C-alpha cells in the first residue's frame, strides 16, 4: 500500500511555491500592485503634500490605496490559470483545498510586500506620525489577512466568470466594507496614539472577520471549482 507522503498542507505549499516562481519570472502581479499604489501616492503628495496630514484622511487614503491595488493585482492568481488553461492540470495534482490555501498565501505575501514598500513612502511623502506603532502593525496585519481571506475566493469566482476588470471590485467591495470601516478606524486610532485597550475592540472585530471569512471561503471554494 502506497504511503502518502504529501499531505494537503505540503501540497498547498507546493502551489504557493509554483506561484511565487512564476511571479518572479514575470512580476506581473507585483507590478500591478505597486503601479497603482505609487501612482496614487505620488499624485496626492504632489498635489497636496504636507497639508494632507490629518490622520483621519491619511488612514482612509492608505486603505483606499491598498484596496484598489488589491483590485488591480490580486485577481490574477486565478485568472492566469484560466487563461493559460492550466486549471485541469492543477486540479489533477492538488486538491481544491491545497490550491485555495496556496493561492491565499501567495496573495498574502504579495500584499505584505506591497505594504512594506508603501508604509515608508507614506511616512516620507505625507509626513504622518504613527504614534502607536504596535497597534498600527497589528491593525495592518489583521486587515491584510482579512482582505486576502475575503478576496481570494472572489478572485476565483471572477476567474470562472471569464469577465475581468470591474467585476472583481464590484463583488469585493460590499464584502470588504465591514473590514474597511474597522481598519480605517483602527489605523486612525494608531495614528493618533490611542492605547492598545482602546483599539482592542477593533482588533477583536478584525480577528473575527478573518476567522469567519477564512473558514467560510475555505468551505465554499469547493463549489466554485467544482467542474
Amino acid at each position: 500500500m502506497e504511503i502518502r507522503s504529501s499531505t494537503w498542507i505540503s501540497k498547498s505549499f507546493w502551489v504557493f511555491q509554483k506561484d511565487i516562481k512564476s511571479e518572479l519570472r514575470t512580476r506581473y502581479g507585483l507590478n500591478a500592485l505597486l503601479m497603482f499604489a505609487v501612482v496614487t501616492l505620488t499624485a496626492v503628495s504632489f498635489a497636496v503634500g504636507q497639508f494632507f496630514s490629518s490622520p483621519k484622511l491619511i488612514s482612509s487614503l492608505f486603505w483606499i490605496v491598498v484596496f484598489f491595488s488589491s483590485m488591480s493585482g490580486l485577481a490574477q492568481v486565478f485568472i492566469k490559470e484560466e487563461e493559460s488553461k492550466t486549471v485541469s492540470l492543477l486540479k489533477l495534482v492538488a486538491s481544491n483545498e491545497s490550491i485555495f490555501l496556496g493561492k491565499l498565501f501567495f496573495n498574502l505575501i504579495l500584499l505584505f510586500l506591497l505594504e512594506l514598500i508603501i508604509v515608508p513612502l507614506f511616512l516620507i511623502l505625507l509626513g504622518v506620525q504613527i504614534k502607536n506603532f504596535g497597534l498600527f502593525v497589528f491593525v495592518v496585519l489583521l486587515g491584510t489577512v482579512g482582505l486576502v481571506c475575503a478576496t481570494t475566493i472572489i478572485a476565483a469566482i471572477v476567474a470562472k466568470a471569464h469577465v475581468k476588470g470591474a467585476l472583481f471590485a464590484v463583488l469585493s467591495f460590499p464584502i470588504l466594507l465591514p473590514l474597511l470601516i474597522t481598519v480605517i478606524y483602527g489605523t486612525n486610532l494608531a495614528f493618533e496614539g490611542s492605547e492598545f485597550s482602546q483599539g482592542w475592540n477593533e482588533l477583536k472585530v478584525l480577528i473575527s472577520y478573518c476567522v469567519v471569512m477564512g473558514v467560510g471561503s475555505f468551505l465554499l471554494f469547493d463549489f466554485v471549482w467544482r467542474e
Partner: protein
Amino acid sequence: MIWKIFTGFLLSGVIIAIFLLPAPQKELGDVSRIFFFHVPVAWVAVLAFFVAMVNSILFLRKNEIVYDIQALSAARLGSLFSILALVTGMIFAKNTWGSYWNWDPRETSVFILILIYGAYFALRSAVEIEERRASLSAVYAILAFLTVPFLVFVIPRVYQSLHPVESVIDTKLKFQLPLPYLLVFLCSILGFSLIFVWVHKLEILLCKFDKDAKKE
C-alpha cells in the same frame, strides 16, 4: 388562497389605520406615519436576503436548479424592497433632520444591502452557462450573508463616535409604542411579509412555465 384574501383585507385595514390614527410622533407630524411603511419594507428586504441565502445553500447541497430560481426571485424582490426602504428613509430623514443622507448606521446598512444585491446581479449577468452561474451566485450570496453580522455590530459602534442621531428616534418609537400603534405596526410587518411570500411564489411558478414553454 384564503391567506391571499386575508392579506388584501389586512393591508387595506393597515392603510386606513395609518392615516386615521393620530400621527405616532406628534413633534414630527404626519411624516412620521411613514414609519409604518418604512420599517416593514426594510424588514422584508432583509428577510428576502435571508431567503436567497437559504436557497443558495440548498442549491449547493442538492444541485437542483429550482433553488437557484428561488434564490434569484428572492434577490429581485429583495432589491426592490430595499430601494423602497431607502427612498422612504430618505423622505423621513429630509423631513426630520433636514438632509436626505447622513451616513448613519441604518441608512448605511440599507445602502450596503443594495450594493450586495447589485453585485449579485452583476455576477449573474457575467456568466452564461446556467449551472456555473447558479453555483457562483450561490457562493456569493452565502459569502455576502456572512458579512451581515459584522455590519450590524461594526457600523453602529464606529458611528457612535461621530454623532448618534437616529437611534434616539428609533428607540423612542419602539419602546414607547402604545397598543394601537403596536398592533398596526405588527399587522403591517405581517402584511408586507405575506406580499413577499405571495409574489415570490408567483415568480417561481412563472419561471417554471417559461422553462416548460421553452422546452417545447
